[in-house]
């Protein structure tokens, strides 16, 4: 009986979090629409075809995909209350997330160094807004992961820690799904 009640409460928490994710998705949709409208307005500045390096972005994509995979495995071990394996897989996710973020910042820095700042053209403004917002989500996900780790260190693998880890897992999968579309619409369509 108690377990059933717990399950119902968890389902409610998931639905609440899911509603947040869907509204976040709508925000990303608005940014994608802006990008789709402005992508050809380069105003004499280089277009995506000249700026983006596809092999570099492929590596970024595969890193984020792998981190989405490890976070899923980590959630399974969290539910089994296996602290060591949970730490390994969430640790791997954290490292992969940091590498991804570092690659994105390096890409931005490279663009900035060549004078391709958001002020340069409408295309670059919409590009930096879209990809930068995704990077900001990754950053907050990493911070959230650190906070959950501190929580687990203090309280152990309680039901509430498992719920937090599961929600983080869902958030991370969501970010990977958004990245699929950034990869396709910004980088692949930009290359042809």
């Amino acid at each position, binding site marked *: 009986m108690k377990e059933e009640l717990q*399950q119902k409460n*968890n*389902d409610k928490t*998931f*639905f609440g979090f*899911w*509603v947040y994710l*869907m*509204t976040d*998705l*709508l925000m990303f*949709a*608005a940014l*994608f*629409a*802006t990008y*789709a*409208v402005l992508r050809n307005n380069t105003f004499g500045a280089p277009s995506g075809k000249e700026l983006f390096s*596809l092999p570099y972005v*492929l590596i970024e*994509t*595969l890193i984020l*995909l*792998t981190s*989405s*995979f490890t976070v*899923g*495995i980590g959630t*399974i071990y969290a*539910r089994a209350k296996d602290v060591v394996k949970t730490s390994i897989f969430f640790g791997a996710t954290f490292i992969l997330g940091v590498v991804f973020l570092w690659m994105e910042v390096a890409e931005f820095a490279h663009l900035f160094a060549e004078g391709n700042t958001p002020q340069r053209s409408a295309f670059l403004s919409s590009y930096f807004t879209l990809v930068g917002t995704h990077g900001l989500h990754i950053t907050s996900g990493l911070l959230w992961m650190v906070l959950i780790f501190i929580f687990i260190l203090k309280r152990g693998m309680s039901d509430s820690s498992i719920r937090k880890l*599961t929600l983080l897992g*869902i958030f991370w*999968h*969501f970010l*990977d*799904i958004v990245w*699929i*579309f950034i*990869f*396709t*619409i910004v980088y*692949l*369509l930009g*290359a*042809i």
Partner: protein
Amino acid sequence: MNENKKIKISTYVLGFLMSVILTLLAYFLAVTKTSFDSFILIVIFMVLALIQLIVQLVFFLHMANESRPRWNLLFFMTTLGGILILIVGSIWIMYHLNYNMTPQQINNYVESQDGF
């Protein structure tokens, strides 16, 4: 979504492998500069991305084995409707504005309107 049903590691491995294959397929199509028309290529890329979306929703977010009533799926579908209106609507409107008119067309339009 549902903790009651046993979610196995193999589900994630399968989803991961399918996602990697779909990503690489799209990547090599873009890199090898296949002889396809660019419109066909855009359609192929979008279809591959949508397949990967479904793969990740099913294998990573387990939307297929959510318990009934499927509120999560329902709300996702509603959001999808909003997204379609937002993106298709924006592109449709913005590519049909006088944005696409020639200066001559703009002059004719202005002259045809009284008070301008």
